[in-house]
């Protein structure tokens, strides 16, 4: 169990993290979602003991994390955003070193290294120098290096930055295996798709503050609508009265952008025929209709007034 209470960190006049609290239990995957510079990495660094918070505390299994040599740090595995590997050494030599940081050597180290390599699918390439690895392989090895001491809590700081979709999927598969093994994953990302795929709960961070902390359904409930109907009109918007459309039962929002009408509805099955019939009756023909689900981007936009990518 990871428990973070009111962590705060400032650099000069800039408050990087402002009283952030969170909880993460066994087998739970928590996403820290926010734009670049939101404070996600600083939060992870404080949990890992790399940065001393100005105030607040980190508890692991009920015990506060204190000092460089706190044995409690063994319960944490850190996957840094950077490829924290020695390119000049082989993958195995890298893992031997990182295992030794946790006093693992001999048979224990060999077994841990074997399991980690197996998980990330690099067993066959273990004797190769890391500099010959592809970006995706390095990312997988970066993950393996954090697993050697079998930590209960895994802190993953944007672990898929700069990798191809195939390698990203491979890493997701690895993380899902770890989740099934009961590991607690704290996953920072600014990709909403990653958070949606992996996380049981998402904490939205902006300007160092927690904006929302809930499950995906819980976050979606914060939205006025969960479904959008996108209708591409043939003749544009001539004579289209949005106020009349909003008066229809079940219609929550209506917005016309570049010839596409987006209608927010509570129930897609019931409202879609009604909206389409309303358009036809008033002579607004359309050539394409699609439905869109609300996503974390919409949630972030709703909560902060800004897009994740623009922030």
């Amino acid at each position, binding site marked *: 169990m990871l428990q973070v209470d009111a962590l705060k*960190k400032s*650099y000069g006049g800039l408050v*990087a*993290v402002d009283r952030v609290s969170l909880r993460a239990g066994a087998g739970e995957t928590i996403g820290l979602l926010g734009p670049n510079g939101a*404070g996600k*990495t*600083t939060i992870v*660094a404080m949990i*890992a*003991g*790399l*940065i*001393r918070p100005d105030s607040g505390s980190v508890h692991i299994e009920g015990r506060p994390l204190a000092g*460089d*040599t*706190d*044995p*409690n*740090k*063994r319960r*944490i*595995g*850190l996957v*840094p*955003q*950077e*490829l*924290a*590997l*020695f390119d*000049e*050494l082989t993958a195995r*030599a890298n893992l*031997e*070193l*990182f295992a*030794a*940081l*946790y*006093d*693992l*050597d001999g048979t224990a180290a060999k077994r841990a290294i074997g399991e980690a390599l197996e998980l990330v699918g690099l067993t066959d390439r273990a004797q190769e120098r890391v500099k010959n690895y592809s970006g995706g392989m390095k990312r997988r090895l970066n993950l393996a*290096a*954090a697993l050697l001491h079998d930590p209960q809590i895994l802190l993953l700081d944007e672990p898929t930055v700069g990798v191809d979709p195939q390698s990203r999927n491979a890493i997701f598969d690895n993380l899902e295996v770890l989740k099934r093994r009961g590991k607690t994953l704290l996953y920072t990302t600014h990709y909403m798709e990653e958070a949606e795929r992996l996380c049981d709960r998402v904490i939205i961070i902006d300007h160092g503050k927690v904006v929302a902390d809930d499950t995906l359904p819980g976050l979606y409930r914060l939205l006025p609508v969960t479904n959008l109907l996108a209708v591409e009109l043939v003749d544009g918007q001539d004579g289209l009265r949005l106020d009349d459309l909003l008066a229809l039962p079940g219609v929550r929002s209506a917005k016309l952008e570049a010839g596409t009408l987006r209608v927010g509805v509570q129930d897609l099955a019931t409202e879609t025929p009604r909206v389409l019939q309303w358009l036809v009756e008033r002579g607004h023909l359309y050539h394409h209709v699609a439905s869109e689900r609300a996503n974390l981007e919409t949630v972030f936009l709703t909560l902060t007034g800004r897009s994740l990518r623009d922030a």
Partner: protein
Amino acid sequence: MMISFRALVRKDLLLFLVDRRALLMSFAVPIAIGSFFGYVLGGSGGQANASKIPVLTVDQDHSAISRGIVTRLSEEKALDVKPSTPVEARAAVRKGTATVAVIIPPNFGRDAGSAFFGPQQKPEIGVLFDPSHTAERSMVAGILTGDVMQAVSKEMFAGRTGREMVKDSLAQVEQNQHLPAEDKKPLEDLLRSVDRWNQQVDRGAGPGLSRGLTVPYTTREEAVTARQNIQYNGYAHAFAGMVVQFVLFLGIDVGIGLLQQRQRGLWKRFRAAPLSRGVLLGSRAVSAAILAFLVVQVNFLFARLIFGVRVEGSMVGFLGVSAAFALMTAGFGMLVASIGKTPEATRGLAIFATLIVVMLGGAWIPMFLFPQWLQKLTVVVPTRWAMEGLEAMTWRGLGLEAAIVPITALLLFAAVFGALAMVRFRWEAEG
């Protein structure tokens, strides 16, 4: 804890051994430069290989005296004498292919002979010299003085020209009405005595002064080194200098390496482990010291095998100086890491600082060439103590007691650098 400490040290050694650039800079480059400087500084045969001073002679007189001067100059071991013409000699000195040119003017022999006994005006010998070699000019001038004195006196006392000149001089003195009586009488007596001596020699009544005046002493030169029959080995100084320089470069690499580890996120991984700061920095310092010690030993081993550089003094002292210098280097590397922010910005500054302390430490040029005030100032330069210690234990052949001060000074520097590094090191990873 020991497992992680050992692994961190082992990692640094491994990274060094797989880094071709590091190997090149630690072994090949100092050996190459040390070999070159060693050869230039006299090699392993004492002064045998020391280059001679190129001197040109222009004999416009062609007298017995001028020929004698040229012959004597040619016999000097320190000079490489070649005949020339006035125009060529001047051009050669200007270009730097000759250091000094000696021009003996026409009638020099006659005029020098006259001036030898009488008040006549002294003839001039032209000495053209390269202004960047003033020390050599002074040396050639000294040698020339002795050679001219010997050549002129020999001719005056034993040569045909000299005998005629004695007679002529006697006649001139006798006829000179302006010469004060108190000078005239002794001068006449002197010249008559020389004339009588010459006649006596002609009759075979004595050995005569066939060699003229000679320098009334000889020298017995001895290079004071470790023991008798141990010659100064120029490679010893050259290798000490280059080892000091390139080991410090190794220290810079240690510091830069730490900064790169921080930049590449490795420091986060290390700090995330339950390791003390002492283990993290200590392991780096130990590996740096091991590498520095190794580099010193390998370079001197090469110098020993190829150029015969021996530890003529205390081996324990040599190892002690090497170890203390290695620790100082480790401290220096840690200091570089603690002061620097980015590897790129730090490297240039660190190299500049290193070159300065290497220069002031006497690794490039011997410290005795420095002004006195600067020599005193170098007590605060760690490389001075490394050079002093290594030279004392190699070609100077001094005992362990001579290594104590350099070792103490180097350890002091190591402690100060290490303490500063611990205080200034930025432990926290950027968020």
